[in-house]
């Protein structure tokens, strides 16, 4: 139950944080001096308006058009299929894992479990290839840190949306690594019951972390797209 609550809060929090970031970056500069209550009110109004607009636009046709318009399809063939398998397996893993964890008391079982295990293998392979071949595209060379009050100011620290996206990428990779490890080790004749319990919890926590990282990554990506900027 605790995991369900944490999952709900974390996903909702990340969603709201991304939404607020988009709201904040779209604000006129002179309106950023609003008091918090007024700002919050404007944010909820903005969120409600956008939700309504998106809901009105949403349809199977619109979704299909959105999917077809993804830059993914224009990538070179190997790269394209690598990402198709990565996204596909991750979506299935997240959907099956969280659906059963949240809504089915018995947990993941039956054919969805077999699918989960198979998708897990595919995801691990794709993730490895992405790290090897694409990881270099998501590195930001950090400046050496100075021991000053700058450390507490994100702006002065140079924390940009791109850097957050890169951090989300590596967080996703780390979570993926932990997911792989926590699926692999319980299958080995190594861990006793407490170790198995630890791996189970680690798997769930890593899964949640990977979903949050993916949300941030996608959120930042769509923000860039909205602004017409290109990723480095």
């Amino acid at each position, binding site marked *: 139950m605790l995991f369900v609550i944490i999952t709900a809060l974390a996903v909702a929090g990340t969603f709201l944080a991304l939404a607020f970031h988009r709201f904040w970056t779209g604000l006129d500069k002179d309106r950023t001096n609003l008091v918090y209550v007024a700002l919050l009110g404007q944010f909820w109004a903005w969120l409600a308006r956008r939700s309504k607009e998106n809901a009105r636009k949403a349809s199977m046709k619109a979704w299909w058009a959105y999917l077809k318009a993804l830059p993914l399809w224009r990538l070179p063939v190997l790269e394209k299929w690598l990402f198709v398998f990565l996204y596909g397996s991750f979506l299935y893993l997240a959907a099956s894992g969280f659906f059963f964890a949240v809504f089915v008391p018995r947990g993941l079982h039956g054919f969805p479990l*077999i699918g989960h295990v198979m998708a897990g293998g595919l995801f691990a392979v794709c993730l490895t290839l992405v790290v090897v071949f694409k990881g270099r595209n998501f590195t930001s060379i*950090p400046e*050496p*840190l100075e021991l000053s009050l700058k450390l507490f100011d994100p702006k002065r620290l140079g924390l940009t949306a791109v850097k957050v996206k890169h951090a989300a990428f590596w967080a996703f*990779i780390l979570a993926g690594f932990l997911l792989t490890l926590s699926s*692999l080790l*319980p*299958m080995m004749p190594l861990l006793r019951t407490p170790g*198995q319990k630890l791996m*189970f919890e680690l798997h769930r926590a890593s899964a949640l972390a990977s979903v949050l990282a993916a949300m941030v990554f996608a959120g930042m990506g769509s923000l860039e797209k909205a602004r017409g900027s290109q990723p480095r």
Partner: protein
Amino acid sequence: MSRAGRSSLAVLGLALGATFWLSGGAAPSAPAAQDARQPAWDGARTVPVHLIPLHDENDEPIIPTETNPLPFSARFTCGPCHDYDTVRGGFHFSAAGGRAEGRPAQPWFWAEPRTGTVLPVSYRPWPGTYRPADLGLTAWDFTLLFGRHFPGGGPAEPSEEEILSDPEARWNVSGRAEVNCLACHNRSGRQDHSEWAKQVLRENFRWAAAAAGGVGEVGGMAARLKGTWDIYDGPNLDDREWAVAPYVKYRTADFDSKHSYFFDLNYQPADDRCLACHAASPVDEVQWKADADVHSAAGLRCADCHRNGLDHDMVRGYEGEAADKGDRAVDSFTCRGCHLGEDAKGRVKVEPGRLGAPRPKHTGIPLVHFKRLSCTVCHSGPMPKDGFTRVRTSRANRLGVYGAAAWATDLPAVFEPVYMKDANHKITPRRLVWPAFWARKDGRELVPLRPEEVESAAAGILGADERIGQVLIALTQVMAEDETPVLVSGRFIFGPHIDGGVEATGRNGAEDKGPSFWGIRKGDGIVPLVPDFDPAAEDKDPDIEPRFQEFLQALDTTLGKPGRPVIQVRKTLYRFVDGSLDISEAPEELGEATRPGWIADDALIPLASDLDVRAATAKAGTERTLTEEEVALVLGALTEASEGAEFAYVSGGRMFRLAKGGKLLSEKHEAAEPVTWALAHNVRPAQQSLGWNGCADCHSAGSDFFFSTLEAQGPLLTRSVTKRSSTSFMGLGGFFQGFFGLTFTVRPLLKVVLTVCAFVVGSLLLLAGILALGRLAGLLEKR
């Protein structure tokens, strides 16, 4: 004092008052009030020497050297120190109260091979069982049927009201079988379970404990006495050979000069005392190859875990028992409690490691196994195998009673381990028996018939073996030492069996449907009992007619014979009349034939009817006791006797009934479903547990755990039996488990792939992390 201060004092006072009230007003250090019937333990770890005076059922002291002393009574001998009424409320004695009392355990089986009856019976309302009263079984009947494996008490010790309500019972002759403390607590090697069983069968209930405990020698047989006999009548002076009144001759060497008897007792019963009634062994196992439970091998006794206080409310050791009993301490006697310190919900609640219980490593076993399976699935009973393991249990198959007669029975057929979900939705190994019984159909419901009701309606149909056996036993009287009378039919030769009935042996090279004949086995050869010859010939064997006379004389002693014995040879009829052989011409209607038989109403009928020969031949070499033909005839006879009521027979997981044309039909019916109960022992050592050799012990495409099939066993010889797979018992999908098992063939590959992936991703993450850290710290030059 301020207002706030006054308020605080009031709250504190209220809290103290509430605490005092909740604690019952007693000071914390005051000892809890003791139940007078359960005196407090003084802490001593020794068992007192039980040199005690014996008392009879009238609470009179017993002087062993007196003439005709009465048997001792546990109520008045043990009762003064151990409150008898508290003891008799224990689990072993309280069934007749009719409370469910926890997880269903093994019921009693009313097994009667002749009528093909295997009825699960229990006073406790457990699923799949019938209450004795519903079957017309009184406490008296129940005691006679099952008292052989009772420790006394319960239905064997009825109240005065119960005795008065059953005038046909013979309690006044037999006495009551009180709780037999010695059955469990006697340490003496003289304790003899077989003696108990025999005394119960002889209706010597009140003497049984003394006889079985070796306290004295018990003779006589209450079952042969008139119903008016009373224990105060003393010996039966009219009959000193047959209807001898029960008596006890005490073993005087074990009494002291004050007439106190030395009982060699255990506080905790020894294992063999428990196993006298609770053993289970595979049918096909050789004794010296059988292993003991791993706990016994480690030096534990049954009673180390299955404990009780004076109330004899045994700890049974199943998960959830603590909640059933409202005593959390009981959790520490389950597998999980003792080895892991967990309660039924997996919460760490009790101190593990009692009696040195090791903590299992369970290395590499995924957690889901502990959620979905009970410990006993992997650790108890025989390993799963196709067809399952057939076992015999003491109470169901009457084991452990030794003597000239064979007590152990094949019926009921008990199978294990059948994995099924329990009340907690955990898969648990169980023992299983398919019921078999005759019943009256009351709408959809089946009301079982008692075997004697079936017998009386189906006279002459059931019991083919016995009738053939009677003829063979009669003929045995006039056979030479090296001769045995036999009936030859189909592929079998039937000889007389020592306990009545017939003993079938195979006949090599014979056809299934060859003609049957009566013969004499001499060495390896068989000659016809009645050879074909010309009775008018002058050179006929001179010994043949004297031999015929012997046969006829012997056959005339056959029990239940349908007429006078005759031998027909061609057109000549041999009869035994007024002490001599009568030879006459056979009546025309008998035709020309050579055969022995019975003559009744001027008709010659064979020594054994065609139905009997067919039935015996069909069942020979099997353990079936009924054929479809017999069942159809009995159903017809029952219908006829009851003027139209509908009847059915249940066997092999199916219900059989007569269709309109007299054809036997079989159908599914809930009453034909098997009765099951959990098994916990024998616990195997870790190396023999499921999963020791890896996941494929269970998770493979054809594993015995998931894919073995059980064919229902019943007394009826038929192809119409239920077959069920392990997965159907478990309530799981067979297709899924097969597919899931198949995935384990590629699992090693998956492990390799995941290992490589984890290594590559982990290495790059480490590298990237170290580089980033180095840059942040300024140790690496910016490029």
